């Protein structure tokens, strides 16, 4: 029996290991390839980008070679991305100034709304909360058209506010934070009331400190969602200069294939750092999103 269990577990371990390698492979490859020189990338991957850059004077390999380890480790691509061509950093900055306001204001406004849903219950509130959930589950194809109409009325097409406003009022944070707040023991709130705290004090001195890890995990989830955004920017920010790096990355080809990997790595640094720092909070956040009911 013991022996059988041992083999069963080892077998599972190896299956899990194979899966883990497959899961890590794309990320690891992207990182390792970012240390190649331009000529090595041309030789290995030239064909992929060739269709868009006819007649470049360098040697282009006749097949695509996937390489794990570069022949010569170089930081050339990074110096290009970070110092020589400002356009990448500019796009990176575009991403930052789109995403940071969305995260801060979405979570901030959600804190008030979640407090309202938790403390002041009524039939109407339940209906509104249900609407929030339905809205949260709607795909972009549906919400994009209303977003576009409002942006047009306000004359915001082409401005980053057209992307920021819908993001700030997206109901995801409200939904998740409400679920966290409802778990705060009501004795804490009753005790604060007895001590003569008013609503704002209960909110700021009891609820917010109790929800600190929840706020962090929600902020991470919102951040990765918008850091990745593609749909709204390509409709609302037609001007390439104001588009975030996520959109710009997909258009990299002609003559800049070499830096593409380095840009991709630079782009994944902020979310990866957040992940390494806040994995537990993130897991907790996902766990609580696991049911649509309170």
């Amino acid at each position, binding site marked *: 029996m013991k022996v059988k269990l041992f083999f069963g577990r080892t077998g599972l371990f190896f299956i899990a290991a194979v899966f*883990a390698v497959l899961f890590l492979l794309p990320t690891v490859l992207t990182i390792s390839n970012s240390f190649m020189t331009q000529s090595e990338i041309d030789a290995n991957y030239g064909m992929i980008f060739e269709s868009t850059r006819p007649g470049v004077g360098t040697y282009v390999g006749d097949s695509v070679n996937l390489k794990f380890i570069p022949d010569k480790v170089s930081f050339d691509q990074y110096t290009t991305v970070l110092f020589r061509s400002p356009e990448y950093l500019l796009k990176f900055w575009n991403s930052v100034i789109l995403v940071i306001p969305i995260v801060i204001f979405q979570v901030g*406004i959600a804190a008030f709304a979640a407090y309202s849903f938790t403390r002041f219950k009524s039939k109407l509130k339940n209906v509104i909360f249900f609407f929030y*959930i339905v809205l949260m589950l709607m*795909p972009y194809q549906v919400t994009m058209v209303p977003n576009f109409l409002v942006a047009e009325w306000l004359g915001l097409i082409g401005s980053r506010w057209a992307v920021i406003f819908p993001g700030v009022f997206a109901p995801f944070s409200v939904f998740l934070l409400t679920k966290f707040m409802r778990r705060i023991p009501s004795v804490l709130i009753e005790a604060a009331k007895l001590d003569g705290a008013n609503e704002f004090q209960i909110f700021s001195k009891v609820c917010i400190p109790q929800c600190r890890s929840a706020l962090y995990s929600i902020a991470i989830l919102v951040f990765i969602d918008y850091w990745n955004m593609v749909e709204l920017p390509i409709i609302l920010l037609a001007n390439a200069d104001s588009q975030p790096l*996520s*959109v710009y990355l997909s258009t990299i080809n002609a003559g800049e294939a070499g830096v593409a990997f380095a840009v*991709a790595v630079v782009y*994944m640094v902020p979310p990866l750092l957040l992940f390494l720092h806040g994995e537990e909070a993130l*897991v907790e956040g996902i766990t609580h999103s696991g049911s649509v009911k309170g």
Partner: protein
Amino acid sequence: MKLKQRMENLNRRTRESIHGAMWLAPSLLGVAAFYIVPFFIVVYYALIDNPLMGNFVFFDNFVRLFQNQAFKLAASNTWRFAIVSVPLAVVLSLMIALMLEARIPLKSQFRTFFLSPLMVPVASVVLIWQVLFHPNGAVNEAMQLFGFSGIDWMQSAHNQIVVVLLFLWKNLGFNMILFMASLSNIPKEILETADTEGAGPIRKLFYIKMRYLSPTLLFVTIFSLINSFKVFREIYLLTGDYPYEGLYMLQHFMNNIFRALDYQRLAAAAVVMTIAMVIIIATLFIAEDRFGKDVEE
């Protein structure tokens, strides 16, 4: 006396509801302004001939939409993608969760590895996908090694496979966490009783665990379905504005009519999709209500 008390009661309640409304106001006003009110305008646009004339034509726009070849192609592609990718996303993530639940070594490291794609921007890894699935790419070379002939992955009927793989890579971790949370909520005593009564692992899975997992199973299914509608993002990053035929999704259709500024068709498409989504979400609520009660008892 009684009246006074009642008045006070009423007063307190109105005060409380006004207070509650104040806390909710910033969010609700924003949601109303950016989502709900414009949505009703969309419904209005879907029912009229054009914004200048404003004549009600009722279902004409919808009839036109359903006769449109591009819409039919996009809808059937989106649907086909969901049919393949959603069951895979559910079953594979459940298998991974069960695997990690079996107390294998390095469990928490594995969890981190499986979760990591959630944090890696898709835009960052599409390059690798292009390298892997290029006609002369790594996948084809590996296939030739085993005696298969290579496939032009992106420009054939196989291109959905490539996107399904990217979708699974991205979404399995999230589903896995949901299943793991649900697995750890199964009362240990029940599993121990089953052990002493000699139930094997398969039996325990289907007769005990599945009963407790069913609400999560349902939620993960719906969530994956909704995520599968968002797969446009991956396709756009892989292929740009003009994908090959098998990858032309509803979002591509929407983007194209956006550029053509055909408001009526756009509005009709948005309304049709809203109705489809509301049906799906309502199913989720009703089903969760039913299955959830079953387990809680």
